[in-house]
């Protein structure tokens, strides 16, 4: 086993490994390296130590911190709403009703539209409604912006999560449900004692996807609110982008923010994965 691994390593692993190093590991390491420098282009950098990281936290406007708080709130709300709605839809569409396939496709469709386009379309819709209700638009208050983003994110993610849940629900052996029914379990009891534990792997993956997607959101944020009013609806990715290009010589600071951003995303994804994994049951 070990011998053949050694023998065939260059044939099977090496090409992928090289591609992986060139396309992922190298840029990543260079990126981390650049966060300790002041640079104009990636090949013209000057080492400045921890300067960039200090600048992030001594910023008088606390842009990064504000963006972090906003993003966290947004992510929490999104995880709850997206998963509850997606799961309910999945339950509904596994009931062998007429037109199930049609509705499944319809709910999945929004996921295929790109973020910028989606942002502009929803901006038109939301502004139309706000114009009628409060005679203004989404840039007026950060509350509008926040819920606008939540609606947009839900609309885009629900279909995808729903498909994953449908697959999970269909995989539950029919005899389990039947046995529960014979034992006299109520519908709610069946849901909480059989269905949900059985689809726990789907819940894990859906929560993970919603979490990372919401936390890393960029184009929808840029197109829908652009951070307005002020910078109050600016999420982390947009803040990084604006830091990178907003001031001469601050590209390194943007890079440093991106490194912190990566660490945060990796950390919560890891913790969340471990927490939900422990709830999964053997099929």
């Amino acid at each position: 086993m070990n011998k053949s691994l050694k023998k065939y390593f260059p044939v099977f692993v090496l090409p992928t490994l090289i591609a992986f190093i060139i396309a992922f590991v190298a840029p990543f390491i260079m990126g981390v390296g650049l966060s300790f420098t002041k640079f104009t282009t990636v090949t013209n950098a000057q080492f400045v130590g921890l300067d960039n990281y200090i600048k992030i936290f001594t910023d008088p406007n606390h842009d990064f911190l504000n963006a972090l708080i906003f993003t966290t709130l947004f992510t929490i709300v999104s995880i709850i709403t997206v998963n509850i709605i997606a799961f309910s839809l999945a339950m509904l569409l596994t009931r062998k009703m007429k037109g199930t396939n049609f509705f499944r496709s319809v709910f999945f469709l929004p996921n295929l539209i790109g973020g910028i386009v989606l942002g502009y379309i929803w901006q038109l819709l939301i502004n139309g409604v706000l114009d009628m209700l409060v005679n203004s638009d989404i840039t007026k208050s950060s509350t509008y912006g926040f819920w606008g983003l939540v609606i947009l994110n839900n609309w885009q993610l629900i279909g995808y999560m729903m498909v994953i849940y449908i697959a999970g629900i269909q995989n539950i052996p029919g005899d389990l449900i039947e046995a529960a029914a014979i034992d006299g379990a109520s519908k709610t009891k069946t849901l909480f004692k059989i269905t949900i534990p059985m689809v726990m792997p789907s819940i894990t993956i859906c929560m993970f996807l919603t979490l990372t997607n919401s936390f890393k959101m960029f184009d929808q944020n840029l197109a829908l609110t652009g951070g307005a009013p002020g910078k109050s609806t600016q999420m982390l990715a947009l803040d990084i982008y604006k830091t990178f290009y907003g001031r001469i010589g601050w590209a390194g600071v943007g890079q440093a923010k991106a490194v912190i951003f990566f660490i945060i995303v990796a950390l919560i994804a890891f913790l969340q994965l471990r927490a939900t994994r422990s709830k999964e049951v053997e099929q």
Partner: protein
Amino acid sequence: MMKNLKKIIALTLASLFVIGIFTACGKTDTGDDVESAKQIRYLNFKPEVADIYQEIAAKYEEETGVKVIVETAANNTYEQTLMSKMATDEAPTIFQINGPKGYLNWKDYCADLTDSEIYNHLTDKSLAVTVDGKAYGVPYVVEGYGIIYNKAIMDKYFALDNKATKYTSMDEINNFAALKEVVEDMQKNKDALGIDGVFASTSLKSGEDWRWQTHLANLPVYQEFKANNVDLTSDETKTLKFDYADNFKNIFDLYINNSTVDSSKLGTKTVNDSMAEFALEKCAMVQNGNWAWGQISEVKGNKVKAENVKYLPIYTGVDGEESQGLCIGTENFFCVNSQASAGEQKAAKDFIYWLYSSKTGKDYVTNKLGFIAPFDTFEDNEKPTDPLAKEVLLWMNKDGINTVPWNFTLFPSQTFKDDFGAALLQYAQGTKTFDEVKELVVNEWASESAAIE
């Protein structure tokens, strides 16, 4: 085996890391005796004339055999594109910066152009980006902005029976008080004039607000620096007291209160929206520069006639503004990449000089690119003919009129401009007072100036 693998990976990564950070940049010196290169690259800033540059490049290759590869950055992405291109083997030989602030960022890449032909032919040497008497950026186009108005609608107003002002022609409007009177009376009579409002919508969507946070803000900054005799090349420009904030408020209020849309609905308006309103005669005035003619003339169903498009200076209510002209300057400066080989640098300078001095080149500059070129190689009859450019030239040559230079090239950073624009939107929506806006401008001017050290 695994140990070896780890070692290999570690070594590869370590070397990549080192290469990434410490790639030294070889400087080459330029002598006049060097052989000119056969191929250069130009990174163009203006997407609207990208096709014309391709034609120019083809013509140039035909005449001289030197290939010019023209690449164009998409709208608002020039810095990003330049940043990534500069790090490659296909770095542009000719690129552009937007003034002294842009020079700070790209100084490692800007070759000394003091001895170049093109700089010698520059009519006004003060326009160039110079440091310690050496020129690093040469302006290639002069542009002007002000309030564009539709003469047909204005004449209609002056002929109205129930107008409440004494003015009878635009020549009498030469200060803010007069402008305000006319505009407010026109707004009252907008139905009779067949317009939705006097001014086109004040586009305050983020990314679309540069006409206010940059162009309009130029006026109070210019007034303040002029009143205090500030040396524009010194550190004195790092503080701004915003003394002329009230003047800024004057004109900004006039814009948002006498417009085609309610001031609470400006957060989604774009520059294109404004220009379309002007082209369709839904409004009588719009603030923009002479580059906007293309935009106006290309709007579908365009009603405004070329001969009716005129300019008015932006009056803000300062003393003696009767002699104020349009804001004229440039933020487009050619630079030659100092990290390119000597031969390429020479070829680059030759190409620029050819474009602005040969018969073919000048024809393209004047008639196709529509540039007002600031070089003495151009005769008086070699000026662009579109109505706004003609108006700019007219205002430049008026007796007793002083043009306002573009001091916004000294604005500390994009972040400053963006934050200022966002605050203006909040002011228009009524969620911020003007005093808060003023405070933000003063504070951010100082903090942003300090941040880019």
